[in-house]
């Protein structure tokens, strides 16, 4: 039987220096803390990290940033992390911001095998450069390119051995989009279950998108922290 389960140190070791990595999660929920902790331990450098936010200081991707492993962060909002805001302000970290739904759509668009889309979001604001505008069907619209990545790190509530994934509550967020947009998809799950216990009607991410599965503790300690 096909089994994508792998040891966490072996799968994280496949990530080279300079890789682009999508990381699921919005605040704590859906953040693959165990995979990130292993990446921090192994110490790959010059990474490009794509995540909705920067987590809070000392946890999640903030650990990688604070350890100097990240050259660039592509994100939507980092307001809950004063350490990363400070690193950005001191120009020690390159941060690229997008409106949250545009970031999601850039990732979804890549996941659908496309190359970009047109939008009017933010065209009257400083985030739009006139060179990004084109005339289409009598409207002035902005071109947004699809956003692909080498790797995605995903947190799923449940997975079977094939990599059929189910996300919990508000932990879905960017996870299913990133699972489609990255070339190599690594999933951590506290619940590696038999396929018979998952209902095919209720799979959020079909197994075709998943390369590797790591079984982790039920919830890593980061989930026990107050707030998110």
């Amino acid at each position, binding site marked *: 039987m096909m089994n994508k389960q792998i040891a966490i140190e072996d799968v994280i070791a496949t990530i080279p220096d300079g890789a682009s990595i999508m990381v699921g999660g*919005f605040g704590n929920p859906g953040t693959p803390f165990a995979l990130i902790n292993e990446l921090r331990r192994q110490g790959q450098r010059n990474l490009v990290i794509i995540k909705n936010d920067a987590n809070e200081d000392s946890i999640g991707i903030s650990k990688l940033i604070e350890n100097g492993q990240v050259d660039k962060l592509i994100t939507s909002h980092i307001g809950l992390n004063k350490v990363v805001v400070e690193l950005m302000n001191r120009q020690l970290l390159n941060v690229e911001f997008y409106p949250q739904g*545009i970031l999601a*759509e850039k990732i*979804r668009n890549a996941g659908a095998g496309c190359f970009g889309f047109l939008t*009017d979001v*933010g065209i009257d604001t400083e985030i739009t450069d006139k060179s990004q505008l084109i005339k289409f069907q009598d409207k002035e619209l902005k071109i947004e390119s699809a956003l692909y990545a080498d790797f995605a790190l995903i947190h799923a509530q449940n997975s079977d051995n094939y990599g059929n994934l189910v996300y919990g509550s508000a*932990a879905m967020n960017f996870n299913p989009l990133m699972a489609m947009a990255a070339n190599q998809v690594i999933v951590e799950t506290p619940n590696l279950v038999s396929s018979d216990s998952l209902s095919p009607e209720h799979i959020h991410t079909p197994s075709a998108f998943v390369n590797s599965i790591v079984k982790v503790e039920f919830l890593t300690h980061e989930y026990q922290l107050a707030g998110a």
Partner: protein
Amino acid sequence: MNVNKIINRAIQELKYGQIVNLGIGLPTKILDHISPDLDIFFQSENGLLGAKKISEDSPINPELIDAGGTYIDIRSGASFFDSSVSFAMIRRGKVDITFMGAFEVDQEGSLANWKIPGYFSPGIGGAMELAQKTPKVIILCSHNDKKGNSKILKKCKLPLTAKKCITRIITDKAVLDVTNEGLVLKEIAEDLTVEELIAQTDAQLIIPQNIGTF
């Protein structure tokens, strides 16, 4: 600033069956002040429709937060979805009302609430899409800043979140509607005269014959 006055007035905007998004800060206080049985669906842009305040005796679900990072609960009829669906809902105008805070607003209905250059630039988050695409954008903010300067301007000076997007502004001193003619005074705080309000407001106000109080 009288926060409760703003929140109590904001709650009057809520009607049966609406879908409502609450911005971080002042707007999320609405959840603390309304009856949990009110038949409204609060959308939280991290991917749920049907948020409700968590009661003190119910267990925390560590995977269930709102967009501001606060643990919450869900009501009957709630749904979860990914971030692209969440913003599809917003950009298609399915969220009826968004309540947002503001650094500055102006008499054309433009909004600045995401960046103060050199001082505050945490990123855009969901603000641009919510402001630009929600049919009814209601701003909740103090009328004046801590130095007494008007936040209601003739023209915003800070980088815009969205141009000409605001429907209504509720402050501790007034309720103002954005119209094609300009900013119309609908209601005034009961302890204030129209002359006092004008003196504390940078924007040009249109003063109709009938003005309510709140």
